[in-house]
């Protein structure tokens, strides 16, 4: 039996009927065609599906869409404002913090949560803050620099 939900995603309200077992990440990707949020594993480990729910980083594979009823979600597609890239998006570009790009949306969303709570993180704090996001391409080296780049811009 489907359930009616109302969710605000990147500032737009959506009303949809969903199967209760549908994961939030599938709701975003399949129902709303917001395919910037990726699925990289089955165990809530890799973080590729990270979005913000009411401002906090969430692995959207670890929540049912029905649980997001009434909540506000930001995905990678909502990070730029009026065509202006978010400092993290700019930072990842400037510091070559991405290669294949698959982990990048989740990485940026987690980093945004990190910077919201700690505007001047040390390298170690950045590395620990990103422990829930896997990248197989960059060796994390330039991801750290990308976050530092953004932190400087956001002060």
């Amino acid at each position, binding site marked *: 039996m489907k359930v009616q939900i109302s969710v605000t995603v990147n500032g737009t309200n959506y009303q949809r009927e969903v199967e209760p077992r549908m994961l939030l990440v599938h709701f975003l990707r399949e129902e709303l065609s917001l*395919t910037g949020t990726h699925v990289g594993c089955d165990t809530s480990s890799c973080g590729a599906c990270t979005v913000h729910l009411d401002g906090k980083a969430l692995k959207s594979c670890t929540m049912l869409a029905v649980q997001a009823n009434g909540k506000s979600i930001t995905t990678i597609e909502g*990070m730029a404002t009026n065509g202006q890239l978010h400092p993290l998006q700019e930072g990842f*570009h400037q510091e070559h913090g991405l290669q*294949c790009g*698959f982990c990048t949306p989740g990485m940026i969303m987690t980093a945004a949560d990190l910077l919201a709570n700690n505007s001047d993180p040390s390298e170690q704090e950045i*590395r620990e803050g990103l422990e829930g996001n896997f*990248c*197989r391409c960059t*060796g994390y080296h330039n991801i750290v620099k990308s976050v530092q780049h953004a932190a400087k811009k956001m002060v």
Partner: protein
Amino acid sequence: MGLIGTSVKRVEDKRFTTGQGRYTDDIKLPGMTYACFVRSPHAHAKINNIDTSAAADMPGVVKIFTGSDEGIAGFGVPCGWQVNFKNGDTMKEPPHPLLVADKARHMGDGVAMVIAESYAEAKDAAEAVVVDWEVLPAVTDAKAGAAAGAPLVHDDAPNNLAFDWALGNDKAEVDAAFDTAHHVTTLEYKNQRLVANAIEPRSAIGQYDTAYDKYTLYTSSQNPHLTRLLMCAFVLGIPEHKVRVVAPDVGGGFGSKIFHYIEEALVTVAAKAIGRPVKWTAERRESFLTDAHGRDHVTKAQMAFDKEGHILALRAKTYANMGAYLSTFAPAVPTYLHGTLLQGLYKTPLIHIDVDAVFTHTTPVDAYRGAGRPEATYLIERLLDTAALEMGMDPAELRFQNFIDPFDGVEEAGYQTQVALQYDSGNYHPVLEKALKMVGYDDFRAEQKAARENGKLLGIGFSTYIEACGIAPSAVVGALGARAGLFESAQVRVQPTGKVSVYTGSHSHGQGHETTFAQVVADKFGIPLEDVDIIHGDSDSVAFGMGTYGSRSLAVGGSAIVKSIEKVIEKGTKIAAHKLECAEADLEFAEGKWTVKGSDKSIAFGDVSLTAYVPHDYPEGLEPGLDFSSFYDPANFTYPFGAHIAIVEIDKETGKVDLKRFIAVDDVGNVINPMIVDGQIHGGVVQGIGQALHEGAVYDASGQLLNGTYMDYTMPRADDFPSFETDRTVTPCPHNPLGVKGAGEAGCIGSTPAVVNAVMDALSPYGIHDIQMPVTSEKVWNIING
């Protein structure tokens, strides 16, 4: 414009940082259905019966395919590389069925494909397929598999041998050198099985268009053209010109997406059978079970030395695990990508290697970042540091005194190894000198001494590696067993307005071709970077391609582009000479225009291209248009090299290894984009260290993969590493027009033994000289506690 050699920011970043990348699973076609596989839960089991009746009645189910269905039965994916037995017998190449009907040979072997209206419904129905299994004994280790009495994977492959193989000097001569040597260092180890774990799981969508009788396969592949060739010619027998293969954005490959997989062929067949598109995307658990794995060698290696530490000889025996079937490039990995690298950077006069390639009841093993070269490097570099410990010599000095002398491959000939290859150019002392300077070697040894006195375990490890990449001259690889050529194609199409579209057979899945290749083109034409577009990954737009692996894109694919660029400039010169009313020889092309030497008369690139397409005032006899294709087949492999140094500290109480510093000095020839090259090194280094300290697939005796999820298979994470210290030297490749060697695998090849060597150096007070990878805390603790 001077774009070559500068760290241009990547043009592909915008779509990836804004969520607009388009990966296969992002594609939704009208009427699309979803496939879910029933897979074997057993490593080795006979199938007595498959009952799909209950599943077929489940909601949303469109069709269920099994291995006995027409169009599937008898079809399988081929191997693309043939290595014969030493005695000349053809290698054993048992069929790898699209779906198994009689017997499963590894956990994850495909048994049925359930197609439904939604992914959830396909999954529900797949669970309702009932298979009557008769479980059989399994073998998972290569050496155990080759032993008498081991359970057979294929009845027609006795002793589970796919082939045996040897390379190098006369065995008796090599053995004789060992008999009289001053010192012999011996290591026996497993270069453990790794799982590539690209973060994007494999995905494939089959589509069939009845109006045009045409198939389209979207697939997360590193080489769409080869997939098309293999699938059309060797699997399904469908006409190649009626198949379009598209590899859109691909979320990392590391080798695992080179190969043609059963799921690609199955969604293609199924799409026509049901008249609707079929999508399959792997769950991570499926990736662990079905993406080709890497490494998995059981090796005994020995190195003989004289009193001064000169290497006299090297010999090795390797049991290479092939898994249950021969994957696309599998036979090449332990042989021509491994045995041929045993010269390393050293003047070793005598080398011999034997390889037994063994079937086991495990996921097929094939190329994984480095593919054979990391195994070869591990073999040599572990022997060297171990020998230094045993002989009381300095590991850096031991290397210096055995390095091959410099040669540029132009004035001096390339270096002929004892193991078939001829190195292109090399200058090995400077990379280690630079790395030692960066690490502050003398200071470190003092610090280490003080640390030891305070009961701390601090260690340094070295690895000076060489690799063969830019794979490769077709005639050579053909002679070595490749069933395909390994050239690359490129089309440079100058549009009338002077904008340039480049079609390359290389495929970017993170390497940044859209930037690096555009830099080359913009630089050579003297036009802005944004006037160049790089198109790749679509067999309908790119003439042909051999794809991206073996660090070959720039050295081979880039060279093909340069060939086309030269053709464009040559023709453009004819047009310019006509327009400027001068002789071609009087013209020079620079900064985007042709200028009459010694004058200010010139014509711009865009004016020449417009003339080519609006040929009203045009050289007689010259064809209109400005569009050239080229195929480039290199003269040799390329041979990057480098020196990696690791410093570790060990927690004495727990055995946990803490990587304190990592220094990498690499020589990848000329560099087009230093930022991208550094990024490749960083990523490779982490994968290499991942093998040293963390990763490794573990099977139990029955063939169950014990760590097939991210809860048990350790993926390197951000907080496992320090920032890296990298630098480079530049020894240009003498035989390709860009002088480039390739950077994709270097980090992964050099780093692994450096870290293990550092651990052994830290543990040297305990008198133990070997440890098995991954170097987990318990293994270290066991050494500390005797």
